[in-house]
């Protein structure tokens, strides 16, 4: 893609007094993209979003929107619009007043504001009779739509979403996630969505940016983040995963050779495509997702395998989760498609195995 990025963040630092919050963040966002900033609370994702919106200044580094440096540009003059975590609907204005407020500030004549508010109401699938009500009288989901409408009416170049769904119950959250995705597709505006919920990010975003302690750990498409994490923290951030310590002997362009004291693997090599880019010889982790592990029948051939004892069985409905302890005392999570008869019993000694195409080798980190 040769087009200039709509948002260009380069080497941004932020500290409050002596405590650093952002330690050098660089990120390019493409036009029309839906990008999610994900990380645990305190990772700096909200600070970064507020810097883009203009509510926080940067200690050093630059933020450019459409190539224009935003340093010193107040929030009111930036081509961005934010949906706040607490929605921040004005309690003293009606729904119509809230949605039309950005236009009113831009001195648009009232006669032109009304039809545009109506358009937004239709886009957000809100009932027209809500227009004269106050936000308090609306349900959580409806308030959410009003907040989105208010943010969209001024046709921003960047829509910034600060965990707007975190306060909603699971069912409503699902509905609004679908809504957001539809909205993104239909209006073509670039979305920057902050959330601590990686699953939500996976569902919505084109690219995900995982942050931790003021740094970007990994930036990639959802499948990269899920199957090819470059950092054990990213690997463990969504769902359950198994990280087995191995020792890497050599890394070449074709394959990586490793050694393990408990994984039975005839050759001990991994194709280059299944290895994180920054992997070097030395200690490493082998990641296998629980749903890719299965029981190996006696005499069956499997790329990698080890023996373990089943210590726990959780029936989840469609699938059954197991906990197994390997002979070396390591805990392993396994998820197997449910059948009417349990494939493994509690306390049973079994052989568990997985295919080489399903593994991923990465460098051990702090986590």
């Amino acid at each position, binding site marked *: 893609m040769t087009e200039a990025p709509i948002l260009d963040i380069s080497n941004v630092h932020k500290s409050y007094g002596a405590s650093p919050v952002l330690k050098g963040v660089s990120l390019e966002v493409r036009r029309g993209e839906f990008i999610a900033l994900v990380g645990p609370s305190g990772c700096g994702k909200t600070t970064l979003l507020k810097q883009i*919106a*203009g*509510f926080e200044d940067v200690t050093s580094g630059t933020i450019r929107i459409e190539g224009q440096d935003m340093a010193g540009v*107040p*929030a*009111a*003059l930036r081509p*961005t*619009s*934010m949906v*706040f975590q*607490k929605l*921040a*609907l*004005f*309690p*003293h204005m009606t729904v119509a007043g809230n949605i039309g*407020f*950005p236009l009113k*500030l*831009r001195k648009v004549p009232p006669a032109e504001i009304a039809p545009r508010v109506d358009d937004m109401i239709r886009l957000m699938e809100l009932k027209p009779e809500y227009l004269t009500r106050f936000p308090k009288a609306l349900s959580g989901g409806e308030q959410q739509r009003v907040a989105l409408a*208010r*943010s969209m009416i*001024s046709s921003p170049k960047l829509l910034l979403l600060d965990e707007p769904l975190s306060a909603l119950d699971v069912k409503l959250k699902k509905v609004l996630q679908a809504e957001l995705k539809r909205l993104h597709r239909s209006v073509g505006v670039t979305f920057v969505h902050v959330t601590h919920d990686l699953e939500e990010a996976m569902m919505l975003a084109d690219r995900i940016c995982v942050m931790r302690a003021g740094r970007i750990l990994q930036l990639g498409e959802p499948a990269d983040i899920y199957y090819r994490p470059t950092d054990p923290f990213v690997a463990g951030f969504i769902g359950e995963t198994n990280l087995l310590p191995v020792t890497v002997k050599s890394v070449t362009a074709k394959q990586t050779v490793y050694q393990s004291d408990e994984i039975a693997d005839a050759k001990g090599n991994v194709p280059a495509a299944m290895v994180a880019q920054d992997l070097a010889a030395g200690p490493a982790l082998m990641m296998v997702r629980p749903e890719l592990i299965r029981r190996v029948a006696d005499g069956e051939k499997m790329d990698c395998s080890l023996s373990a004892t089943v210590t726990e069985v959780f029936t989840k409905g469609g699938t059954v989760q197991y906990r197994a302890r390997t002979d070396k005392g390591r805990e392993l999570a396994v998820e197997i498609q449910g059948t009417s008869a349990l494939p493994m019993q509690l306390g049973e000694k079994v052989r568990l195995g997985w295919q080489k195409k399903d593994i991923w080798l990465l460098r051990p980190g702090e986590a």
Partner: protein
Amino acid sequence: MNHRVEARLADVLLYGSMAAALIFFYVPIFTLIAFSFQEGRYLTLPFEGFSLKWYGELFRSAPALNALWNSTIIALVATLAATTIGTMAAIVAVRYRFIGKRAFQGLSGAPLAFPQLLLGIVLLLWFSVLGRWFGFNTGIVTAIIGHVVYIAPFAMVIVAVQVYNFDPVLEDAARDCGAGTWDVYRYVTIPILWPGIFSAAIFSFLLSWGNFYLTYSLAGSTRTIPTFIFSGIAIGSSPLYPAIAAVVFVPGILLVILANRMRQRG
């Protein structure tokens, strides 16, 4: 003691003390209202008869009307100044974090816990010394200044409650919608704080309107209702006073009710 007897006793105590308190608070007020309708010249019971004649006298009494007028002017100006200063101080004291916050809160609220008569005297000394240097006398202006010093902290406390319940993210949201500094105040901050500001203004008005101590020290020869009545009591009660009281009570209770209504809405 079993629980039911205890609960009964607690109810008797709580309801009884509330009833007693309300009667206690309204004894002098109703006494004054009752006496305002007496016919005779002496403020003693039993009445010689009921009449509205002292109300008529009141509206023909130039000093009384003058006092009423002075009270109103002082209260209006003091209210405007005290509410403005108090509102700004409340935002600073609650919303911002800064060096010297404690000192600011203490300084801005200090006159609340300072006896009014002493405040009046301290200010009288100050204005007398300044007046001698710069050639002015105490009068209506110094009285207004004294009232503002005393009332602004009250206004600050009342508005502070409203500021405390006002989420500053709304101001961010307004800025995000394209509002400049002044727009944020005009469309968001002031409308949302309005119930608090409004009730602060009403309380300020009533505090100033009924203020005796500061006016007494600082108004020079200017008389307001409270000092007018005080100077009269010292010589001997006049049958006019209950009528003045009743006239003063009516707008007072209406304003307090209005302030409470506003606060509930906000």
